[in-house]
């Protein structure tokens, strides 16, 4: 194998910061530790990574250590919640550039520490998108350090040596040294400057793009050895559950813990203060029961007598709130994007088609309910927890306890699902407060399923109204879309009462249709619950409404839904929406010139999925096909769903086809698993997903009244069709984009099968 200098011009952007860093490796391992420049490099193409807190770190000393035995240890600095990006795909990128033998690679999890490792906020489908380039640089840098060490050892020019699958070879003589033999010498070298890095040619990749690497935790998961937040055990560990206010912003008026203290095993009862809004991720407050077992803590909590002051949200009610949201979209709202003159175009249209859609709050319901364990020794706090943002959680915990962040160590365990819930670390703060209340003794806070369902940060509730004006030739000439949903920004600022730029940027103001008159408005919606991002966030509601509506128009016109969708998308072009949107344009935090809305790519996945699904294929009676396409997290996805609906209205999904264009792809095996999972999550939210509140209280509590799709109702076959791209096409999101097109494709298929149009989610009994 030969390496050639990458044609892309890599330059050194910032070498001004110098810092001494500790390695992460264990005994007997030479840690590549030295003084080095902390690099915020220029990459082949820019991404939003630089603007994330603490940006990116590309230094091999931070991420790679090699033992005398040749074992290469790579640091995973982001949280692993099941998509395989953090602990498999990113280390695999390093290993590939390092030309390491994957069988001799180990992965260790970094603590929460963004100053050292760069941004750790594992959210927004960003891991591969933001870190493919930095991790290639880490791997290439480590490889060149090994080559330099070998050249020095042999007294030859470095141009005569090459790293090749865990060995460095002196090409003229055939002499070889293993990575383990060179580790100590390499560790003493400075990290190569970025402009001296020789990145591999993609044709030389061993792992990237191949799908030949299994997830690193596979054996441990299948043998019960994998450790999640709920599983942390420490000597002398105590277990806590918390009775939280049933209404957001409610408080404890009074409580009596005398019966609780009589429960065998109960050790202590501790009050936790709530935080007035905007409370960000601060705990809700309440009364904690600490005991010698989880069971004793649960019994103790049952025995608490608490009088709640329900506060300002005491009368909040989902039924009346739905009516308010629907009212909000039936009148003019706040202008978010305007092109042409929609009022005039609707007024002179030959035909106007209107539809409204409503989708409710959802709970994440990660299989692992939230949990965190903390202990404090000599003023130093240690936390073990399953959070998506270990660095942010560490800093916020430190702030709440008045500690220097240096005195807080946050160990990030595996996450038993994340989906956005574990981006909010209220449970980690609870654990920290409770160990403090126990003079530092180790305490694990366990959330039950009921706690999880009733005290979440819910996917927002949305009402949508879309009107389309058609001219006499049945061309869409006007598109007015109003959307109302409480904003998650109410966690961070006084309730803005309207969706904000991030929420609007998710499939609303970036509507890619080729229509001359477009007017997008948002409606007023006050926040009464904790709203938080849920996998795909506002894209779920926007894509469902828009892509359902497209199929509704097609049906009224007697057009093929796929052909009509392509016509509405229009010719391949870069959508110049930034100038036309009145809100700040937000493109998933990415520079728009690198990741523009490219209707050619949206067309391509639509055409690809139609071809692969054999769109229009003959189906048995009671079956139907639906199609939808949506860009989110700067990826392009289209889905065809086949449904079968029997005479009783029972819905099944025999087949799903999804085409994804996520730029240059790294781990097709995990892309497929994400797309398969997205179909199941989409089906769950479509069939069942609904959180409702009455008197400010969540009415659901567990999988009996918040059901999710089970084994027998899963799509039988999901085919994933991944668009091939060269490495010049920037990598984009995978974890979230599969969800938004699924639900409208499903509902469009239901319509094709039954003639019933779903305009309110969940589907529930609407097909009966």
């Amino acid at each position, binding site marked *: 194998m030969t390496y050639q200098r990458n044609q892309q011009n890599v330059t050194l952007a910032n070498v001004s910061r110098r810092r001494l860093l500790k390695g992460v490796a264990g005994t007997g391992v030479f840690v590549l530790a030295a003084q080095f420049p902390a690099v915020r490099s220029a990459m082949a193409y820019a991404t939003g990574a630089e603007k994330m807190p603490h940006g990116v770190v590309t230094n091999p000393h931070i991420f790679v250590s090699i033992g005398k035995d040749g074992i290469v240890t790579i640091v995973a600095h982001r949280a692993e919640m099941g998509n395989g990006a953090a602990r498999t795909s990113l280390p695999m990128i390093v290993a590939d550039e390092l030309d390491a033998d994957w069988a001799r690679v180990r992965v260790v999890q970094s603590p929460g520490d963004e100053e050292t490792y760069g941004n750790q906020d594992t959210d927004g489908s960003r891991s591969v998108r933001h870190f493919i380039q930095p991790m290639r640089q880490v791997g290439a840098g480590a490889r060149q350090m090994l080559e330099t060490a070998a050249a020095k050892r042999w007294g030859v020019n470095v141009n005569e040596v090459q790293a090749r699958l865990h060995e460095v070879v002196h090409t003229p003589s055939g002499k070889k040294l293993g990575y383990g033999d060179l580790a100590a010498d390499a560790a003493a070298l400075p990290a190569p400057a970025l402009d001296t890095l020789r990145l591999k040619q993609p044709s030389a990749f061993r792992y990237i793009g191949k799908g030949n690497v299994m997830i690193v935790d*596979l054996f441990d998961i299948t043998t019960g050895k994998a450790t999640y937040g709920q599983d942390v055990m420490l000597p002398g560990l105590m277990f806590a559950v918390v009775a939280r206010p049933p209404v957001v912003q409610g408080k404890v008026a009074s409580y009596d813990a005398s019966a609780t203290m009589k429960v065998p095993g109960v050790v202590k009862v501790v009050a936790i203060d709530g935080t007035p809004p905007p409370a960000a991720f601060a705990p809700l407050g309440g009364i904690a029961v600490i005991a010698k077992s*989880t*069971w004793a803590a649960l019994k103790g909590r049952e025995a608490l007598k608490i009088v709640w002051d329900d506060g300002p949200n005491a009368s909040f009610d989902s039924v009346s709130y739905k009516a308010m949201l629907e009212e909000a979209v039936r009148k003019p709202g706040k202008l978010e994007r305007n092109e042409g003159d929609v009022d005039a175009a609707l007024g002179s249209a030959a035909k106007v088609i209107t539809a409204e859609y409503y989708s409710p709050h959802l709970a994440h319901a990660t299989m*692992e309910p939230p949990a965190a364990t903390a202990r404090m020794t000599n003023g130093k706090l240690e936390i073990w927890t399953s959070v998506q943002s270990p660095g942010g959680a560490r800093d916020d915990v430190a702030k709440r306890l008045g500690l220097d962040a240096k005195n807080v160590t946050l160990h990030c365990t595996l996450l038993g699902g994340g989906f956005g819930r574990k981006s909010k670390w209220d449970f980690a703060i609870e654990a920290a407060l409770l160990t403090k209340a126990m003079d530092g003794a180790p305490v694990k806070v366990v959330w039950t399923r009921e706690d999880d369902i009733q005290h979440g940060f819910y996917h927002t509730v949305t009402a949508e109204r879309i009107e389309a004006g058609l001219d006499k030739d049945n061309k869409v000439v006007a598109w007015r879309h109003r959307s109302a949903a409480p904003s998650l920004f109410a966690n961070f600022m006084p309730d803005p009462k309207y969706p904000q730029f991030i929420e609007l940027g998710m499939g609303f103001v970036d509507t890619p249709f080729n229509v001359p008159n477009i007017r997008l408005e948002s409606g007023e919606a006050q926040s009464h619950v904790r709203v938080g991002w849920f996998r795909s966030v506002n894209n779920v509601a926007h894509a469902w409404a828009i892509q359902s509506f497209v199929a509704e128009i097609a049906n009224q016109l007697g057009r093929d839904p796929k052909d009509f969708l392509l016509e509405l998308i229009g010719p391949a072009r870069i959508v110049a929406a930034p100038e036309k949107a009145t809100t700040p344009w937000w493109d998933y935090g990415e520079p728009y010139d690198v990741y523009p809305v490219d209707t050619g790519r949206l067309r391509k996945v639509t055409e690809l999925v139609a071809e692969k699904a054999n769109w229009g294929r003959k189906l048995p009676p009671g079956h139907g096909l639906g199609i939808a396409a949506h860009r989110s997290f700067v990826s392009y996805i289209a889905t065809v769903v086949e449904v079968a609906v029997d005479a009783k209205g029972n819905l099944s999904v025999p087949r799903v086809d999804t085409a994804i264009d996520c730029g240059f792809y790294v781990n097709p095996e995990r892309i497929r698993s994400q797309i398969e*999972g997205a179909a*199941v999550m989409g089906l769950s939210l479509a069939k069942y997903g609904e959180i409702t509140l009455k008197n400010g209280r969540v009415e659901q509590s567990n*999988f009996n009244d918040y059901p999710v799709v089970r084994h027998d109702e899963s799509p039988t076959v999901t085919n994933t069709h991944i668009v091939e791209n060269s490495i010049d096409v920037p990598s984009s999101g995978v974890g979230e984009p599969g969800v938004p097109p699924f639900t409208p494709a499903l509902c469009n298929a239901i319509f094709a099968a039954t003639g019933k149009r779903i305009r309110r989610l969940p589907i529930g009994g609407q097909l009966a």
Partner: protein
Amino acid sequence: MVNVHVNGKEQTFDGDPSMPLLWYLRDELGLTGTKFGCGVALCGACTVHLNGEAIRSCGIAMSDVAGKSVVTIEGLDPKGEHPVQVAWRNISVPQCGYCQAGQIMQAAALLAHSPAPTDKQIDDAMFGNICRCGCYQRIHTAVRAASKGA
């Protein structure tokens, strides 16, 4: 006082006899491979074998396991090479992995009774085990791969 065999080892428990087996396994024995998912036998994450039958350990009290034999994911196979575990790895089933111990224990019990199950039998047996990541198709494929009918 409750005597119970766990993964072949005799254990004695003298705590609250109403404590579910789940919490005994996790909090007292440190066998955290058995997961807490719902606490009310709705999700299957805590599935273990009790005298060879798949049961939800969150839904059975310690007093009801006296004298019985419990096998957890840690005790399914000494090397972790039960055919179901091997199939799970070959098919690359897990995403987050949290539910997988319960899924594997459920599948192992199914195959012990029905070595060559039909699709319907797999559906019926695995119905109680929720996977929120949505690995069901691969779970189904892996159960089939581990079966005699494969």
